[in-house]
């Protein structure tokens, strides 16, 4: 897993609440190799049924080309557990997501893929989106070590992250490696449990 330390990148606003993972990658693109999925990101939000790009979707606008951060609305990436919703955005260059709230499963999936989901207060996230609309192509800086987001207005917000997740991201290690070092505790738990729930 690639480490995440800090990122300064063009940020793109996604204004709708409850954007579900079916919108991030529609089901018909699942069941294919990861390399083939990249063009499917936000496919049906980006494109009209005839395949043409919708000009009103920010990702289709020149000002936001090369974006690496998404600033979203509440309950971003809710719904299906498909981890492809994270990987398809990572494969398109997005490593940080800022929203007032996230779907829980997506939030967890980010940390398995070197991506950072950041929760900030609703009013501040709305302010950031407005600033990005006003000045397409503006940068946001996310610094994991100091747990800060620097907006296009220069204002710095602190965000919370569990030290466990932070440490794994900074070092680029996934949790399987860490957990295997707890093999003896797992075995001890299993030995205890064998008596307690012997019917399993």
């Amino acid at each position, binding site marked *: 897993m690639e480490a995440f330390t800090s990122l300064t990148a063009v940020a793109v606003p996604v204004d709708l609440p409850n954007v579900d993972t079916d*919108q991030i990658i529609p089901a018909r693109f699942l*069941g294919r190799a990861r390399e083939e999925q990249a063009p499917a990101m936000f496919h049906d939000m980006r494109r009209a049924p005839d395949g043409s790009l919708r000009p009103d979707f920010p990702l289709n606008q020149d000002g936001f080309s090369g974006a690496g951060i998404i600033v979203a609305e509440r309950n971003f990436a809710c*719904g299906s557990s498909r981890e492809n919703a994270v990987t398809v955005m990572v494969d398109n260059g997005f490593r940080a997501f800022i929203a007032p709230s996230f779907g829980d499963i997506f939030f967890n999936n980010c940390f398995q893929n070197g991506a950072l989901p950041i929760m900030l207060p609703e009013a501040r996230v709305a302010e950031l989106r407005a600033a990005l609309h006003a000045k397409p192509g503006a940068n946001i800086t996310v610094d994991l070590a100091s747990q800060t987001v620097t907006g296009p207005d220069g204002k710095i917000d602190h965000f919370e992250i569990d030290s*466990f997740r932070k440490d794994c991201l900074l070092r680029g290690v996934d949790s399987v490696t860490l957990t*295997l070092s707890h093999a003896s505790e797992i075995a001890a738990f299993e030995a205890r449990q064998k008596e307690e729930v012997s*019917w*399993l």
Partner: protein
Amino acid sequence: MAQPSLTMFEKIWRRHVVVDRPDGYTLLYIDRHLMHDGSAGSFARLRARGLSLRRPDRSFATPDHYVATGGRGLGAIEDSHHRGIVAAMAVNHARYGFTVFDIGDERQGIAHVVGPEQGITQPGLTLVCGDSHTSTHGALGALAFGIGSSEVVHVMATQSLWQRKPKAMRIAVEGNLGFGITAKDVILAIIARIGAGGAIGHVVEYAGSAIRSLSVEGRLTLCNMSIEAGGRAGMVAPDNTTFAYLHGRAFAPKDAAWDKALAYWRDVPSDEGAVFDKEVTLDGATIAPMVTWGTSPEDAVPITARIPDPSSAPDAAKREGMERALAYMGLQPGTPVEDVAVDRVFIGSCTNSRIEDLRSAAAVVRGRKAVVPSWAVAGSGVVKRQAEAEGLDRIFREAGFEWREPGCSMCVGMNGDTGKPGQRIASTSNRNFVGRQGQGVRTHLVSPAMAAAAAVNGRFTDVRKLAQA
């Protein structure tokens, strides 16, 4: 000193702690791991890392997402990629030795139907699956939640997961549900009330007299859609209804082990006076048959209502969202829901494909004709056989329904079972997201009885009128 009062969730959590880190992270032991055809990629990653499946005896699998429902077997799957994904289950089974209900097995079906049906799901257990609707299994008093494919690899290799403890929420539905009201109407009413993000970060315990009076199958429907309110999991306290349901099932304990398990299970429910981080109460008597009008499960209204008007929205963002949803759904504000005509009907999915769902739909269909193309898709081979033994398949077929093979089918839009752009579908599934049932398809979530009523009338109909007629 008196023991502190604990919630059911807290008790199960505490019994499964392997490691507690000072920073608040817990390595939680996982008792049961359910897998489906979509887990093939996780097996490939497990193997690529040189890891093995730690507990094949705690791992169960059945293909559901990619299977065809127009015919049985691998040959019925048209897409060669999808056929390969389903075929991988037998290969992985041979390699790792978990319990499998594969495509030729009568016990095959939707993982969230099969788990409870086989007695794999039990009170007090932790259960995970690489699917968001794993919340279903909480209906039996298990702590069950969906995970991503990397966490699936983690569970395969270690039988555990790193978790920060979620908060606890109690949703009480008190009073008696009215005539014709089902668990599906209850959960849609709950989501309409608290919103699609109303339970984010929480494990929901459903309580109250209306919940206790639900059958286990109704509770499965209820807990299934916890994720549509953002909940990490949903649970109902195990009681005699639960124990009677489990008794005699293939993977449930037997004889002396049953008695021991029963004693353990009776201690699972929340203690008197347990404190929840959030509490919501609904009056069950006021819940009507529900229909969704928009593109989020929170967009649900009673069948007696009209399509909402965006001009009544509290703010501009909400108004714009409603306008967008109505444009996609092709609906005019102010239209009575009962005036909305449907093009297709789908009865099935992990939400509503169990025997009671099929009975309830068949009771409405009996002696009537579907006037739009309609499907009934049993949740498992076991459900299908039972429905056939009861003659339900005949009722559906005589009404013009297609009676199909078990699988996720039209709920998930990834196995060939999809609608056409612009089609309006009355569906017993769980998500009315844009494009969920195919590009441009308009999904309205309803109960099985309401779906059946829409099938025979060609428009949404208050099923209470049909049942009285």
